[in-house]
């Protein structure tokens, strides 16, 4: 049976979403536990993707189709994993591009990579007002909030959003990650964010560290 999981990990690495979904179904039919399918099939494959991406052996589109394959597998597993420790440990992330900013390539990239790593991501889209972040945190109770901005003129709204979470009494319930072209480590510290990431790969690592 380990063969199914090995094959699943390998198909996931190749970005074959339909094959992965089929193999997940097959594994469940054969009586494997959902948590084992997740850990030894999907996450095992995605770990290899993450490692090879970090070494520069994989390109972003290759990582993204692998992430989509992960997603296809998770769509089947998630309902069966309610209350499971692995999923609960990874947790939810609310993500969005801050108010006034319509750029979302980087944000989408982070979203897909996070999903690939097993996070459940609630995407608020672009031009997200501070109140909308506050409402989403209240409604979804995520462990993480991710904010993106491409412009120096809009990046100030990262601070506005953090202040709004503070005012709503929600700041301490979440870890906050920020990123985007003009954003720096120093800026993250200055506005009281918990982490800064230079790229999508680093964002996943930072997210993992924050929820660990």
């Amino acid at each position: 049976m380990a063969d199914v999981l090995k094959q699943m990990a390998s198909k996931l690495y190749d970005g074959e979403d339909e094959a992965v979904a089929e193999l997940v179904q097959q594994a469940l039919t054969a009586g494997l536990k959902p948590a084992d399918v997740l850990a030894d099939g999907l996450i095992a494959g995605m770990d290899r993707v993450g490692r090879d991406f970090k070494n520069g052996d994989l390109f972003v589109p290759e990582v993204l189709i692998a992430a989509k394959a992960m997603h296809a597998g998770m769509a089947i597993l998630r309902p069966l994993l309610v209350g499971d420790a692995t999923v609960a440990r990874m947790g939810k992330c609310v993500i969005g591009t801050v108010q006034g900013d319509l750029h979302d390539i980087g944000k989408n990239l982070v979203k897909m990579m996070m999903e690939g790593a097993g996070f459940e991501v609630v995407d608020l889209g672009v031009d997200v007002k501070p109140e909308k972040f506050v409402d989403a945190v209240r409604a979804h109770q995520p462990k993480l909030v991710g904010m993106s901005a491409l412009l120096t003129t809009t990046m100030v709204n990262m601070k506005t959003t953090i202040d709004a979470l503070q005012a709503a009494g929600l700041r301490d319930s979440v870890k906050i990650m920020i990123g985007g072209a003009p954003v720096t480590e120093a800026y993250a510290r200055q506005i009281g964010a918990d982490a800064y990431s230079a790229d999508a790969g680093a964002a996943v690592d930072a997210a993992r560290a924050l929820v660990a």
Partner: protein
Amino acid sequence: MDVNYHAHHTLQFRVLSDRQIERIVQATLECLQRTGVDVYHAEARHLLASAGARVDGVRVRLPPHLVQEAIAINPRAFSVWGRDGRHRLTIAPDHVHFGPGVTTTFFVDPDTGERRLTRRGDPALTARVCDALDHFDYVMGLGLISGVKPELAPVYEFAEMVANTGKPILAWGYSLHNMRDIHHIAIAAAGGEDVLRARPLYALFATSHPPLIHTDAEISNAFYAVEHDIPVIYTGGGSAGATAPVTGAGALVVSLAAMLSGLVIIHLKKRGALVCPGSVPEPVDLRTGRPAYGAPEMSLYSAALCDISRYLGLPFLGTAGASEAKTLDLQAAIESTLQVILSGFSGATLVHDAGFLDCAELGSLEMLVMVDEIIAMTRRLMRGIEVTDETLALDLIDRIGPGGEFMSSKDTARRCRSELWVPTIFDRERWVNWEAAGALSTLDRIKLRLRDILHSHTPPPLPVGAAEQIETILREAEQR
């Protein structure tokens, strides 16, 4: 590789029009008939006289039909093989291959970075580095070995090269003794005379003496090569302003006249021999009288000679990756880039002289590493743009639609490696990542890549017993 996708000629680069080419060819035929060339090889003069040339002392004047016949009988395409069986040069117009230069007096020491005399071991390093670099297709020795019997330098050079690369080699010699030694070393490396005859693993690089002189030594070497079915690269030449007229067109005539008269002589010795004419038409900087490899005219005239060669159905040896700069600096990078791009676009068959600094006086392994990256970029340009139903991607565009993204589509993932070139040396990181990785300059990365190759690259081994045979050949040459 070929220039352009076969069916879709995206890049169209020519220096001369058909009419200009025809005028230059006619002028060259007139020059060979009226002025002629000096031939310092008795048998060659005899062959030329028998074929109808007018011989007066060493001066030989060639009737046009002799030249036209030689052009017609040169094979349309032939091969030089690597002993690894994987690398093969197709010598034909528009097949482009890159390689290093030859006979620099000085060498940049790869350990200390110092400029010192070239010595034993340097051609071995050159061969190993070229063996490792994806975009070098053949090997030349780069440096002229000092510290050995001077007349044996080309033999030691060849012995070192053949042991350190599986790629094809361009060899040269001072004398027939050199040629015999080199050929016997090649037989040992190939694993037998028949094997070498069927698949020559080296070609002879022979040069005329500009303007318009064929020397006894070079013609003797060429005759030895073709008698043993070894292909010959035979270069014309003439530096505009010094050994050729200062005008571009006049310089082209002098180069072409030497190339084509050499071709005639070689085919009279052996009809249908494998010959690749070539030329290094570098102009002279008339402020100093020094040749200027990095001059734009060098690449312009090379590309023009390439146009003419293609028109005549001949391959051509061109020049790129050579600079007058004294260190591997911005000038070296800029001049190399211009030369590599123009050589590639013009479709030169064998492009040589990569790794030259200081006017062909100084060889640099680091420069080979840099030029490899420039060739890689140039090859991406040479490939042009493939236009097919599949690459037009209308279904994909329709599926993704306005405001969507193409980065996570399977189509992108499947084609991302073949469609978009990625550098191995040049940096494209975000500042923070670049800083975290040590804030390396391009030169730092070139040095690291070179160190990595020198430490870790292993060329394919020689056949069993070949190394001992080569040692014996070298010992006997020393005792002669």
